[in-house]
């Protein structure tokens, strides 16, 4: 069983399949070199992500996870290095045909109803008008929000909004989905349930996912591979493989190896989090 899981995941690149996302030596610096406000956010990141793979980025706060995600999505250009998506270089230009985003906070437009929000996203994708509503309703029903299509986002709870936001990201027909802490605003129980839903939905669509999270359990539960990053400047510290087939059932969380992997991740992260905090203290001291 675990062999099969590896084949879709980490092993795929080794098996010679072209990666869905290829990151080569990406470095990101904010501000000028040596400037007081200058920050080296990412330092020489290289990573291949196979088609259909679910990869988690895990690391201390401020290590550049969102930055890396935005670079992959073409929201801006890295200082150096390059990202290739589906064989084409991403050069600081979004690729809406290939990549969809789900951001940390809901990006639903408050002046449109839920269904109108979906229509816009689908319109930009070039989906014909006649198909937009069906696609949107399917996605909403899949996350249990079918009854709220005509609501405005402000009329939903934070959790409901984020669920809708996630559904919008999934319903557009891209091969790649970039998710930046999509569940951060939710309580733990909702996160678990939504994580389960996500696993089921994605097993159906076969999308390639890059997912940022701070939750160790979420990372283990959802990922094929977990990329542990170092404190700033962000580098790849280790990659942990999770050999388990999608869709995953909650029972997976009860298995001993689930706990073991979680502990392993925590041990890896603890040092980095301490370093990140020390960095912050130094920065505060230096600024005063």
């Amino acid at each position, binding site marked *: 069983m675990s062999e099969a899981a590896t084949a879709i995941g980490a092993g795929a690149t080794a098996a010679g399949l072209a990666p869905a996302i290829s990151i080569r030596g990406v470095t990101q610096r904010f501000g000028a070199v040596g400037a007081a406000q200058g920050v080296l956010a990412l330092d020489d990141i290289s990573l291949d992500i196979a088609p259909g793979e679910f990869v988690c980025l895990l690391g201390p706060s401020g290590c550049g996870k969102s930055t890396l995600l935005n670079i992959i999505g073409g929201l801006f250009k890295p200082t150096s290095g390059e990202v290739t998506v589906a064989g084409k270089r991403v050069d600081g230009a*979004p690729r*809406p045909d290939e990549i969809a985003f789900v951001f940390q906070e809901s990006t639903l*437009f408050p*002046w449109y109803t839920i269904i109108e929000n979906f229509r816009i996203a689908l319109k930009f994708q070039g989906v014909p008008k006649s198909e937009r509503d069906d696609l949107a309703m399917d996605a909403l029903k899949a996350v249990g929000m079918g009854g709220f299509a005509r609501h405005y986002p402000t*009329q939903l709870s934070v959790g409901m909004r984020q669920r809708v936001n996630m559904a919008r990201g999934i319903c557009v027909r891209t091969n790649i989905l970039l998710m930046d802490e999509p569940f951060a605003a939710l309580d733990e129980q909702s996160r678990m349930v939504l994580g389960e839903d996500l696993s089921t939905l994605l097993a159906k669509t076969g999308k390639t996912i890059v997912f940022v999270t701070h939750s160790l359990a979420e990372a283990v539960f959802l990922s094929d591979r977990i990329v542990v990053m170092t404190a700033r400047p962000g580098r790849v510290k280790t990659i942990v493989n999770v050999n388990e087939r999608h869709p995953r059932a909650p029972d997976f969380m009860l298995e001993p190896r689930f706990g073991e992997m979680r502990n392993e991740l925590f041990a890896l992260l603890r040092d980095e989090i301490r370093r990140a905090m020390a960095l912050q203290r130094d920065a505060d001291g230096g600024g005063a």
Partner: protein
Amino acid sequence: MSMIDAPREIIMGMPRARAVSLTRWAIILAAAAALEIYGRFFADPAFIRPVSAIVGAWFNPVMSDERIFWALSMAVFEIAVAYALSIVFGAAIGISIGVSNFARASFLPIVLLLYAIPQVTLMPLFILIFGLGAAGKIAFGFTHGIFPIIVNVVAGMRDINPLHRSAIASMGGARADLLRHVIAPNMAPAFFTGLRLSMTLTMLGVILAELYVSTGGIGYFTRLYAENFNPAPLFALIGTLALIAVLFNSLVRVAERRLTPGARAPAKLGLSGAKSK
């Protein structure tokens, strides 16, 4: 619906909306009755007249005297033109200032400075430049009305959620889509606030100019009646101006309610629930 949105539906044994409008009319009628009694039995007729006399004066001479009717129409025309100019130029200037941080930082302080000047002090200048006719009054209304629009358009363009910008970009929207789906709807409430303020100020500007240049417009008649201690037609004239102001304001409000997108438009709130369809 929340507790605040769903108050009691029945008040004083009738639907809420009817109770509200009934109460409103009751207040107006009570005030009118009080004025009638005061005007009829207590007041000096050289200064205050009862409501009935004012209504009478409204039919004659205010509405029947061609010259007064003409003066009122002129004022309405001046207000309309000044307001239209304020909207067009205010929106254009506001958008040009609002598009970039650079433009905003450079121009907005100047606009705010000009906005702060009490323009009445400049009235003689306007008359010198534009003369005693409609042009001067329109210009004066325009310089009053344009500022709230500029300031509110700039403010409305300012607080755009950066995530909405990213969302449009990541979904493949163009610059025009950003304008249409984010900047414009985000700006709408502030823009309408500007429109309402501008309406009031445009009217103030035009009427101030009318009163100042009293060669034949409503300013001439108000002065005529005031100086002859003939308050009934004076109040009728002022009341008519107030009515015109209310009318213009309702126009803006209707436009606001119909054109503000999303849940922020109060009229839409009740219709957007799951029950509606």
